[in-house]
């Protein structure tokens, strides 16, 4: 019995040219929650993946509970009581929850027996940690929040004593996050050890006992949470002083640029996702849409952007009607001054295999400034990309580099640069800082506010309540496809949280 659940000694890992982890030493006390923070690409996921046996370290050794263990594959890790919730979920999308939980722990050659026990175990865990999931639901039909529960249940079902969570709250609402943290606390009290990776310092302060900071593949500091503060951590992380709350002046709303009336959107299966939604966005204001992921925000954005045909309702852009129920296309709308930062940069906002410069014109590739007749004007495109890279401090500053090789933070900047520099009159933004580190967040928030002050009309959708509150001039709360209330950004978090959870809005009810 050692006081440390995990000891990593001299862990070193290279991915080809990238030195992801440099000679890392770290000790994790048993029965504690240990936070790990760091910029995008600092090496957090890699380190955890090594501990979990998903990657093999080039050098170094791992001690679990004082015993040196050679973790060759996840199976070894699982056997020694390690469970991991990956940043990019490792779920089989068209399997049911139950199948996913069972996978790799089926007990017997023939499933039926395993199914029964898994069902019972799942039920038990659900009750114990109040994590309701329908075991027979198919993953791809579940909101991300629930999908994550499944990941956690997977780990617990395998009897994990050590639980690693890589950016778990990136996709959660405050309410969901708090619930998650309650569960973590519960697990901690049961003597389990928890490693928590996050970009959100608030969460670190709230739940961890100790925190380690990574930069450029090294652990630059480890602190006892109670003896440190957000500013110090942020500074350790980025290596410079960062503003956590970007100051923003009074807004001077102009005339209505984007007006949505009775918009209704159904998904592929005909389920109503956006239900008769109406609102306006004026020049020079930021309207924030708060809500739990999967309550129709995505569909709302896509409908307005012309990516998804609406079932009913009208949208007016700069005073001109948009044929949202008909043949409105993203291409046309861009020409009319609508810019869109999509929620999912990996699958929608970017083509990961493209060069950076090619992604810098995605959607604008038919603009005269980038084309010569049928041809693309490669030189113009690369020059323009270079310019944006400098303005937005995108690293590495190489327009010919494959986009996949940029960190998420930088990938996100590529998207923002593309959409903002088109000088649109209306800008709609989804999850601008998901999976992005504090350094980048600061920058992105600054740019959004600048855009507002230049008189752009901005519609901001985010599951980060903090983000909504610190950027928006008005906050709309969405639940089950409807807008259930409008609030000012300084409304206490609790109240907004209730609205987001669908609890009836007294004020509206009163009227």
């Amino acid at each position, binding site marked *: 019995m050692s006081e440390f659940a995990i000891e990593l000694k001299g862990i070193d890992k290279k991915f080809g040219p990238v030195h992801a982890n440099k000679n890392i030493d770290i000790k994790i006390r048993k029965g504690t929650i240990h936070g790990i923070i760091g910029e995008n690409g600092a090496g957090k996921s890699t380190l955890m993946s090594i501990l979990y046996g998903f*990657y093999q370290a080039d050098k170094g050794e791992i001690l679990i509970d004082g015993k040196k263990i050679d973790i060759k594959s*996840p199976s070894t890790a*699982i*056997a020694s009581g390690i469970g991991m919730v990956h940043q990019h979920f*490792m779920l089989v999308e068209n399997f049911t929850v139950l199948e996913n939980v069972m*996978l*790799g722990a*089926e007990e017997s050659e*023939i499933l039926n027996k395993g199914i029964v026990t898994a069902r019972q175990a799942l039920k038990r865990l659900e009750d114990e940690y109040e994590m309701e999931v329908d075991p027979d639901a198919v993953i791809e039909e579940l909101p991300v929040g629930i999908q994550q529960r499944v990941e956690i249940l997977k780990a617990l079902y395998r009897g994990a004593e050590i639980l690693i969570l890589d950016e778990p709250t990136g996709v959660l609402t405050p309410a969901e996050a708090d619930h998650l943290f309650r569960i973590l606390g519960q697990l901690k009290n049961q003597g389990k050890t928890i490693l928590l990776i996050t970009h959100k310092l608030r969460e670190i302060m709230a739940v961890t006992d100790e925190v380690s900071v990574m930069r450029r593949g090294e652990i630059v500091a480890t602190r006892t949470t109670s003896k440190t503060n957000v500013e110090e951590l942020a500074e350790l992380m980025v290596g410079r002083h960062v503003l956590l709350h970007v100051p923003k002046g009074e807004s001077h709303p102009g005339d209505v640029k984007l007006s949505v009336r009775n918009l209704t959107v159904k998904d592929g299966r005909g389920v109503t996702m956006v239900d008769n939604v109406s609102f306006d966005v004026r020049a020079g204001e930021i309207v924030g849409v708060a809500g739990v992921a999967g309550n129709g925000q995505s569909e709302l954005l896509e409908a307005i952007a012309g990516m998804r045909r609406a079932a009913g309702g009208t949208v007016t852009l700069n005073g001109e009607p948009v044929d949202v129920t008909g043949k409105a296309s993203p291409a046309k709308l861009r020409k009319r001054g609508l810019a869109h930062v999509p929620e999912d940069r990996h699958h929608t906002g970017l083509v990961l295999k493209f060069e950076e410069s090619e992604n810098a014109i995605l959607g604008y590739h038919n603009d005269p400034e980038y084309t010569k007749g049928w041809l693309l004007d490669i030189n113009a495109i690369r020059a323009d990309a270079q310019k944006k890279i400098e303005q937005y401090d995108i690293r590495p500053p190489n327009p010919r580099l494959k986009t996949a090789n940029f960190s998420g933070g930088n990938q996100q900047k590529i998207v923002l640069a593309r959409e903002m520099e088109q000088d649109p009159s209306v800008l709609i933004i989804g999850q601008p800082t998901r999976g992005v580190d504090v350094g980048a967040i600061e920058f992105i928030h600054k740019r959004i506010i600048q855009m507002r002050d230049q008189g752009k009309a901005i519609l901001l959708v985010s599951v980060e309540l903090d983000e909504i509150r610190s950027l928006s001039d008005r906050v709309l709360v969405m639940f089950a496809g409807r807008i259930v209330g409008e609030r000012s950004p300084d409304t206490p978090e609790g109240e907004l949280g209730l609205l987001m959870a669908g609890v009836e809005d007294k004020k509206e009810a009163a009227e």
Partner: protein
Amino acid sequence: MENIDWIISILQSTIRMSVPLILTALAGLFAERSGVVDIGLEGKLLAAAFAGASGAAVTGNATLGVVAAIVASLLFSGVHGYASISQRGNQIVSGTAINFIAAGATVIIGNAWFNMAGRTPSLPADAKLNPITLPFADALRDVPVIGQIYSQLLSGHFLLTYFAYAMIPISWWILYRTRFGLRLRAVGENPGAVDTAGISVVRMRYMAVLLGGVMAGLAGAFLSMAVSAGFTKGMSAGKGFIALAALVFANWRPKNILFTCLLFGLLDSLSIAMQGKTVPLVGSIPVQLWQALPYILTVVLLAGFIGKATPPRASGNPYVKER
């Protein structure tokens, strides 16, 4: 009466023709459900047909022939596995290579061994696979309809035929009711999830591909040892590709495979049975049109009824963790 016989004969032929397709399509099913695309089926079919016929001819023992067929097919599966799983090579290129090698090698080796003009000695009755009659078949032969159907349609097929049809529910059961199947489907959808669940992606895919090899081997044996009594160069005559089409057509589902393969079989035997017949109103129809019938109807059916086919998400992509 004569017409009844004719229809029955069409159905019998349908059943015969569907067997190699079913087995080959199932071979493809296992491979592709595990994420390994296999357009080398044609080659395996050919190699197995050759090995089966040779084995049986040399040993004079049908069982050994079948074993030889399976071994040959497994050999090629192994190569395909090594190229596309271990070496993460392009699966289509690997498949193409296998088709080339099989096409050439079967003839060369055949001549070297038997030098019988690229064929193998035609098998004596006891060295080939023979039809079996179900109990009471002869007794019931004269009972109208039911009797006829039982004795002429259900009875009198090869053991492999019954096996092939049995394999459809069995494959379904393997895929959806066993641990192996669960992991196999998972690895074809999201190998990362399988890997992080502590299961070896490589091992799963090899097992799937080799299992497919066994199926293709049996299909080959059926061609050269059951429906014919010896190997002729290039005797697979494109069945590997048709089976592939049947698999896609079946949307990678075992039970659909039954229907698509039966359909191909039926259309094929119709195109034979109808040749030379004159159609009312239309009159006589060029041979080529009858021969084109199966393909035209397939396309029409595809367009008309079958919706989008959705392949296993990870199929075709080697599993690469570290870039």
